[in-house]
């Protein structure tokens, strides 16, 4: 399994007072400021709400979360670590260690949710499902294969697509529950994960683009083709996986819009234009607002008619407020 993963063969003491790429420091600080642990989220407040779900809904939720656990485990144990040997700066290496650790925190946080809401046999059954589900295993296998390949930029593409696209068939569900005022504390925890994944996808995508900067046109084209091919391969499998999970509750089409929307963002993180047209990315407004209360049209001037826009109450500011 690990025959093609290598370690950095030369290390020098990392000097954070000599920075080659400001982005490394900026992202490190951002990740540290965003640090959290599942113990801080009052998950037990969701017990009552959990008991209002049907057996089918509970099963779906457990399966979605073991699916997410698998992806976070891959990213923590293999994905982020596999990027270290090809880092352009020592600080980039350090950022990947931070990302790897946080992915392990994410993976563990699903177990916190499980132990709060479900019984041991239910938990064990859900983990068994994650081993046996074909589409979930295929998704893991596709990504693992690329992580073990020889091309460092292709690894970054696979990693960005995992961070920015593959999680979202799962993230949909807690946003859906949250929009129905269910499992709201669990949703708060998932929002913290979603926030982290955005920074991870942004950073790895940035380093990918940086690596492409001096490449030949031929090489650029190769990586673009590769990215879109991988996206199609993953998307096809993702649709199957979504049907497996969500057909029973009638949400598949709604989830697919969320997939398209996030696929576009994953491509943008890699510097490519969005692929799915507007008609296929019109995410259910309830889901979007569960994700971000600022995302609806009444929060800016240009969207919709603009007439409903209210300028926020102005603060009295002193010149000092602007002194940095």
């Amino acid at each position, binding site marked *: 399994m690990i025959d093609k993963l290598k370690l950095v063969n030369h290390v020098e003491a990392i000097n954070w007072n000599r920075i080659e790429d400001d*982005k490394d420091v900026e992202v490190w600080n951002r990740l540290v400021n965003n640090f959290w642990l599942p113990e801080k989220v009052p998950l037990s407040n969701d017990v009552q709400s959990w008991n209002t779900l049907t057996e089918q809904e509970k099963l779906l939720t457990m399966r979605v979360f073991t699916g997410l656990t698998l992806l976070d485990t891959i990213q923590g144990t293999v994905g982020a670590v596999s990027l270290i040997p090809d880092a352009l700066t020592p600080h980039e290496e350090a950022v990947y260690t931070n990302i790897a650790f946080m992915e392990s925190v994410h993976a563990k946080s699903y177990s916190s949710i499980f132990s709060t809401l479900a019984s041991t046999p239910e938990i064990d059954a859900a983990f068994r499902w994650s081993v046996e589900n074909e589409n979930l295993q295929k998704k893991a296998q596709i990504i693992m294969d690329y992580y073990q390949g020889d091309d460092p930029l292709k690894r970054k593409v696979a990693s960005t697509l995992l961070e920015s696209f593959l999680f979202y068939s799962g993230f949909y569900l807690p946003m859906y529950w949250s929009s129905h005022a269910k499992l709201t504390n669990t949703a708060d925890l998932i929002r913290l994960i979603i926030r982290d994944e955005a920074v991870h996808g942004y950073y790895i995508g940035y380093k990918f683009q940086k690596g492409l900067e001096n490449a030949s046109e031929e090489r650029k084209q190769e990586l673009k083709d590769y990215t879109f091919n991988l996206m199609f391969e993953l998307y096809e499998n993702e649709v199957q996986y979504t049907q497996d999970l969500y057909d029973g509750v009638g949400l598949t089409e709604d989830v697919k819009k969320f997939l398209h929307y996030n696929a576009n963002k994953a491509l943008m993180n890699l510097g490519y234009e969005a692929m799915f047209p507007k008609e296929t990315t019109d995410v259910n407004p309830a889901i979007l607002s569960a994700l971000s209360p600022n995302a609806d049209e009444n929060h800016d001037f240009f969207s919709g008619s603009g007439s409903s826009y209210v300028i926020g109450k102005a603060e009295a500011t002193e010149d000092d407020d602007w002194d940095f």
Partner: protein
Amino acid sequence: MSSSLIYFSSVSGNTDRFMDKLGRGGDRLPLRKADDPLRATEPYVLVTPTYGGGVEGGAVPKQVIRFLNDPVNRSLIRGVIAAGNTNFGEAYGLAGDIISSKCRVPVLYRFELFGTADDVDIVGQGLDAFWQRLS
């Protein structure tokens, strides 16, 4: 009425790319402290990314704060457009809200990363209407 745009974009270049697609020019704020500062000379709309992902400060890039710290620059701002990512929840485009409340100008629009073709269309048309309304 002028239709000037001033923007900040970090080395990742997302906002710069949006401005490029918008095709209306615009002056980019300097990245480094040592660079010559930019002085606004006419009314403008500011386009800025949002940093941080949290709600506890750091959302407005330092370079933008430095620029707005100049009272002349602050007096000429007419609106703000904020880039961001909905993954940041209530902090999505937060830089726009902060600048809006401090400078008493509207958040004109939010877009994610470097914006889609639709975002570019909406902002282009929106800016035309906005400047007309102000003139």
